[in-house]
């Protein structure tokens, strides 16, 4: 697309739309991309990120990450920090899939040990971790118990035998956001979600067996501190969220915010998907409490999936998961709003940071990083496309420019329909198998939509993030087995 003349180059990786670009912009919009990524940007992104800059109470700048692409309301890859006292909260700045996120698990196994059992592993995982449209998981609980689960998150899982105590330490928020209140969620949200714990979902959600080749370990010391410590080590990475429960929470509050936004609070937004309410209002606080329930549900969902993965590896290799060294490396969200303290122009501010399709990447020794990783910076898990590769990164001290946020994936470059016209699911599966990646999917057309060529080059995205000083790369993983949701 033709870039607007107002877009100003700040550095090789930072571009700015000034407040004069669009009526009502309270702060500039900044795009963190190389010129090459910027040249491929969707026309919707600049429009959407400048709309975000209109939201009441936004401070600093509305930021678009290197993998930014056209979403609804916010672009995917959008970050906005609101003053906690004067600003708003917007469900469209978090996304319907609240706490969609990534989890990474290490093993002591090497590619040479796993290859001969790869089909068996993937086939068993495919059976045990349900994926695709709707569906229900193996954890059978009552609606009342589900209400407890959404207040406790991963802690509920550990209490019920689905995981290890150390998993909590290595999960963002220790697997539970404390402000969750089940009284803020609707019966419909419970009804949509209480059977879905332990399910992957579909679209770009996946569970992947990956390998860390020595040539793709960029920082040996940090990698080892994160548990990536041997040549051709096998890891498991997966991507999913709060399923129908989170989708309903977001839908419920989007509708309720629309009713009060203008009438009660006098806020006008051109795009209704940016419906919002003052953070300090009863509506804003209720949504924040409900959103935290959905965050916790997603942590619990990924926790029981981890439990399933450990069970399957244990069955296939005839060893206890402890003996197999199946420690969780980290779990991190990329669709949330969090209360954080940031320095801005020499002042310390309490901010509500919205990250939609963006990952928090706190620098070394900042709060809320597991004690054992404190000096490394926050680990960041980036899912690439199923054909190309994924990354483990860490946050940097220079990340303040994006409120310590970075990319979340490679970013879509082609629509789902175009991808489906261009690729055939069965052919893609066969072709990937020839290249050493064994894939199972509940839908061949869904598989075609996720073809590697439908995405931006993940390496370019990660390089841009590193060049901009918002995260640094530690390991690149290559897929060998994939369950596509």
């Amino acid at each position, binding site marked *: 697309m033709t870039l607007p003349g107002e877009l100003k180059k700040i550095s090789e990786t930072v571009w700015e739309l000034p407040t004069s670009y669009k009526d009502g912009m309270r702060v500039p919009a900044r795009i963190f991309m190389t010129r090459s990524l910027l040249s491929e940007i*969707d026309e*919707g992104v600049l429009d959407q990120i400048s709309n975000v800059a209109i939201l009441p109470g936004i401070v600093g700048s509305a930021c678009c990450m290197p993998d930014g*692409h*056209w*979403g*609804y*309301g916010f672009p*995917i890859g959008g970050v906005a920090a609101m003053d906690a006292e004067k600003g708003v909260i917007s469900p469209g700045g978090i*996304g*319907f*899939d609240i706490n969609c996120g990534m989890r990474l698990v290490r093993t002591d196994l090497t590619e040479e040990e796993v290859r001969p059992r790869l089909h068996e592993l993937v086939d068993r995982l495919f059976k045990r971790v349900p994926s*695709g*449209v*709707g*569906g*229900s998981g193996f954890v059978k609980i009552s609606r009342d118990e589900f209400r407890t689960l959404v207040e406790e998150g991963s802690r509920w899982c550990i209490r019920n035998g689905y995981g290890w105590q150390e998993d909590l330490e290595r999960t963002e928020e220790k697997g539970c956001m404390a402000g969750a209140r089940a009284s803020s969620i609707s019966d*419909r949200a419970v*009804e*949509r*979600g209480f059977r*879905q714990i332990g399910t992957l*979902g*579909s*679209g*770009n959600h996946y569970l992947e067996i990956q390998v860390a080749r020595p040539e793709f370990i960029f920082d040996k010391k940090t990698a080892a501190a994160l548990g990536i410590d041997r040549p051709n080590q096998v890891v498991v990475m997966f991507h999913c969220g709060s*399923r*129908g429960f989170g*989708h*309903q929470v*977001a*839908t419920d509050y*989007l*509708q309720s915010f*629309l009713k009060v936004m203008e009438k009660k609070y006098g806020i006008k937004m051109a*795009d*209704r*998907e940016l*419906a919002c309410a003052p953070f300090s209002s009863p509506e804003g606080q209720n949504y924040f409490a409900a959103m935290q329930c959905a965050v916790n549900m997603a942590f619990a969902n990924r926790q029981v999936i981890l439990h399933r993965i450990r069970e399957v590896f244990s069955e296939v290799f005839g060893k206890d998961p402890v003996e197999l060294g199946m420690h969780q490396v980290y779990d991190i969200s990329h669709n949330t709003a969090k209360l954080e303290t940031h320095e801005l122009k020499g002042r310390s501010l309490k901010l509500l940071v919205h990250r939609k399709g963006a990952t928090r990447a706190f620098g070394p020794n900042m709060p809320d990083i597991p004690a054992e990783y404190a000096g490394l910076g926050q680990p960041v898990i980036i899912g690439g496309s199923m054909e190309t590769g994924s990354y483990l990164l860490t946050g940097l001290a220079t990340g303040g420019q994006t409120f310590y946020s970075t990319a979340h994936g490679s970013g*879509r*470059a*082609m*629509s*789902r*329909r*175009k991808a489906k016209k261009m690729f055939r699911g069965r052919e893609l599966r066969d072709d990937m198998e020839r290249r050493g990646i064994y894939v199972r999917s*509940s*839908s061949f*057309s*869904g598989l075609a*939509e996720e073809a590697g060529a439908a995405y931006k080059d993940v390496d370019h995205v990660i390089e841009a993030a590193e060049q901009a000083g918002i995260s640094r790369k530690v390991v690149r993983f290559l897929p060998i087995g994939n369950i596509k*949701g």
Partner: protein
Amino acid sequence: MPYTYLDDIAIADAAFEARGRDLPSLFAAAAEATMKLMVDPPGLIENGVERRLSLADEELDMLLFQFLQELIYYKDAEDLLLLASDVEISEKNGQYHLEASAWGERRDPERHKLNVDVKAVTLHRFKVEKIDEGWRATVVLDI
């Protein structure tokens, strides 16, 4: 059915334009366009279970939002794949009312060719408008 998927908006998600000579046919077309993303062809859905839908909203477009959202709700809450028929829409005292029969059956991965899960109806570019030939709706669904 009169609907077209749109390639070039919100590329990570799915967008469509539905048309109808009147509001009931517009709503039925939008329901099928939504379901076709999950089950293709939607003709494989058999008419075994019925759910009655009764909805109201001050805004016509938000009535469509609620209606599509109901189908997504039943997909998760009861594992039901539903299409709509006998849609009736009326307006009284500034409020739009919808009565409809949604019919279908439980999801069966052996028989239904399942595609992608629809998470939600978004309000991005969401529109219901009167055109010369009847009505048109533009919808972006979160995938």
